[in-house]
């Protein structure tokens, strides 16, 4: 097979994300099942081991979707957008949805989906907030039940061996993403392209994503494109479209996004599953309090990780973008802020809605922040 150029590989990441509904529908047409994951606390390994495709539910920019959802006005745009997509039939290929509670909104929007019977199979994971032997074994038991249910659905029993194989694949993905995170500047990859590398990891088959990542990382290093006077920033955001708008806004005002912290609570590159013991227990230990999620992950570790990313990327400031009415990450910001202030990290919180105009209104703040970093 002919080697792809870097831009071709990057385009495949981009298309992998943007064309997710179509590729999932194709997957489904081949007689294979697809399971939606409402955020990063859902262990995809179990879904994968059952022969199903795990796909994270992600926002799609279309103003009509929020209205379509008919949810309460004070709920985040993310929950409305995803609900709107479901109601509009954009997720009709899903065989089921798994919800791992990250916040009260994502946990309780499930109640409405269940009431409206939006998918044949809807399940709330019983994820403890603590990490100790009792919590691990409680969670492992829930995952075993989940594996049985998914195994029946996918027609493939989740054996220990299959689960270890899936864990191995996702661990590899975590390692490659980690490597990518550290080398993206040296590879000369733009912030926008980097966003698609991350976003596609949420929706693509892991084997394909791993293979694309390997091709990307194999390529030659390039000189970073930044001019020395350009202030580099780290952008932390939940909503991918909003992150994209912010990247463009920063660039418009002469800044550069040199590192990102994008997530749906799925900054899952941070933590690999230890390959020891029994696989469900290993997963429990790898997930409980190991996925950066407000309140159930050490604030110290989270702040240190951000500070370390800034150090490695040379970012001079941090922009923490919160979607309006996202109380979970609004609260995380306020808590991390204490450390950023203490450590002298220039930072700024932006709170906006998922439409370009909303962020544009904050352009003066972005501009002044960047100027303060020069």
């Amino acid at each position, binding site marked *: 097979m002919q080697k792809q150029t870097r831009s071709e590989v990057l385009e495949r990441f981009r298309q992998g994300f943007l064309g997710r509904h179509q590729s999932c529908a194709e997957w489904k047409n081949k007689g294979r099942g697809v399971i939606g994951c409402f955020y990063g606390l859902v262990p995809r390994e179990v879904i994968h081991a059952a022969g199903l495709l795990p796909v994270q539910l992600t926002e799609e920019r279309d103003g009509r979707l929020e209205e379509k959802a*008919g*949810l*309460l*006005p*004070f*709920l985040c745009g993310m929950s409305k957008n995803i609900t709107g997509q479901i109601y509009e039939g954009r997720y009709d290929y899903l065989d089921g949805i798994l919800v791992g*509670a*990250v*916040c*009260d*909104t994502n*946990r*309780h*929007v*499930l*109640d*409405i989906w*269940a*009431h*409206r019977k939006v998918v044949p199979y809807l399940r*709330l*994971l*019983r*994820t*403890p*907030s*603590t990490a100790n032997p*009792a*919590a691990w074994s*409680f*969670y492992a*038991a829930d995952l075993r039940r989940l594996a049985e249910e998914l195994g029946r659905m996918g027609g493939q029993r989740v054996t220990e061996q299959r689960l270890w194989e899936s864990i191995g694949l996702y661990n590899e993905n975590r390692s490659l993403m980690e490597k990518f995170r550290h080398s993206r500047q040296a590879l000369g990859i733009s912030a926008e392209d980097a966003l698609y590398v991350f976003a596609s990891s949420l929706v693509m088959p892991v084997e394909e994503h791993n293979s694309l990542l390997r091709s990307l990382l194999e390529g030659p290093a390039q000189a970073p494109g930044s001019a020395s006077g350009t202030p580099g920033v780290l952008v932390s955001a939940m909503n991918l479209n909003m992150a994209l708008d912010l990247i463009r806004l920063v660039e418009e005002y002469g800044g550069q996004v040199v590192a990102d912290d994008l997530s749906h609570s799925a900054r899952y590159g941070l933590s690999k599953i230890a390959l020891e013991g029994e696989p469900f227990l290993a997963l429990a230990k790898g997930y409980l309090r190991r996925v950066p999620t*407000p*309140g*159930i992950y050490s*604030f*110290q570790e989270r702040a240190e990780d951000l500070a370390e990313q800034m150090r490695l990327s040379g970012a001079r400031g941090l922009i923490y973008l*919160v979607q*309006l*009415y*996202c*109380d*979970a990450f*609004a*609260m*995380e*910001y*306020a*808590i991390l*802020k*204490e450390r950023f202030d203490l450590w002298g990290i220039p930072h700024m*919180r932006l*709170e906006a809605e998922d439409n370009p105009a909303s962020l544009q209104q904050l352009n003066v703040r972005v501009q002044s922040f960047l100027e303060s970093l020069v």
Partner: protein
Amino acid sequence: MEESPSKEQTPDLKSMLKKLSAGASYRRMLAAREQGKPICVASAAVPVEVLYAMDVYPVFPESLAAIAAGIRKAEEFFEAAREKGFSNSVCSYTRCGLGIAWTQKSAFGPIPEPDLFITDVSVCCLHVTWWAYLEDHFKKPTFYMDMPATDDPWDPDYVAYYEEQIRAMVRFIEENTSSRLSMEKLKEAVRNSDLAGLYWKKILELRQDRPSPVSFRSLAGEILPLVTALGDKDCADFYWALYESYKQQASQGYCPAQGGERFRLIWNGIPIWHHLQVITYFEEKGANFVWEPYTALSWGNKTPSGRLDAENPFHTLAEKYTNVLTNMPLERRFGYFDQAIRDYKVDGLVMFSNRSCRPQSIGQDEVVEMVRDAHGLPVLIFEGDQADAEGFSMQEAKTRIDGFLEVLEGRKRS
């Protein structure tokens, strides 16, 4: 089993309530500190009976926030939260509670430095993040009563997991303080809690009478000991006395609604602490609240039997505290409304769509839809916040209530 805690005494309700008032709790907390007893900042659904039995003095930031909002003294705490970078989208109890923690001030005076933090994880995710912040910021031993998200809180495995959490909480307190658990004291605390819950339930049942002798406005204040003082014999005595008093009022045909009870209503949601006059306004207009999930399903003996088994304290408390309404599917929640509408002969619903409390508000519209389909009752929906008065207009509320009551009136006539 049914017993009154002190039948031989004539209930002196006023002095009993005085002993259990928020001000009295505050003075008891100061006394506890002087006696060297541990003070614990606890979230509202921690098994308080255990704390009582272990002589740990609990401070409940949510109650303090509600009180601060009730006397319109919460603004300075919200301001402190804003200054620290907390967005207004974070629950007002959390913002106000943190304001109280930073300033160590309350409506009654300064709060002594606590020794422990304990939270439950059942009611909302903020109960985790909020206490995680307290742990992180104030660096005190913190315990998380783990209760993972579920939509099947009755599952025996789930209840068993929580039962183990209660035992772990006891170990945590013993490891971090000089308090030791006496099983006898725990059983006694559970017995007292059971009686308080029993009489609370009886009070609520009196509201099936026509007219109902109970004012929701009064209940909103009288519920406090059920949140903060369970385990205490005074608390059980108080609810017995309160029941006796309401029973007497019922026999005299007393009704809090002025001009007689024209409409019987359900209130869904936490009371609007900063504008409890909203409830009074209903009562002035002849409308009486007769059932609320907040009073009927959130507190008291929430076990399947409606009683607590003092001989099995850990298990009974686990059954009680895992029974969380918002962890139930919407159909099940509607089931409670359906039953109450029949039992309490309800004419209409008032839903408080509370922007702070997502667990309570999400799904409310769907329940309303089910109620409308099943009973065709008129529904009034208020939007607002339980503790933050920003954006709330009493005048607007009155206009909407007037319109709603006209609809009810029209239905009565037709």
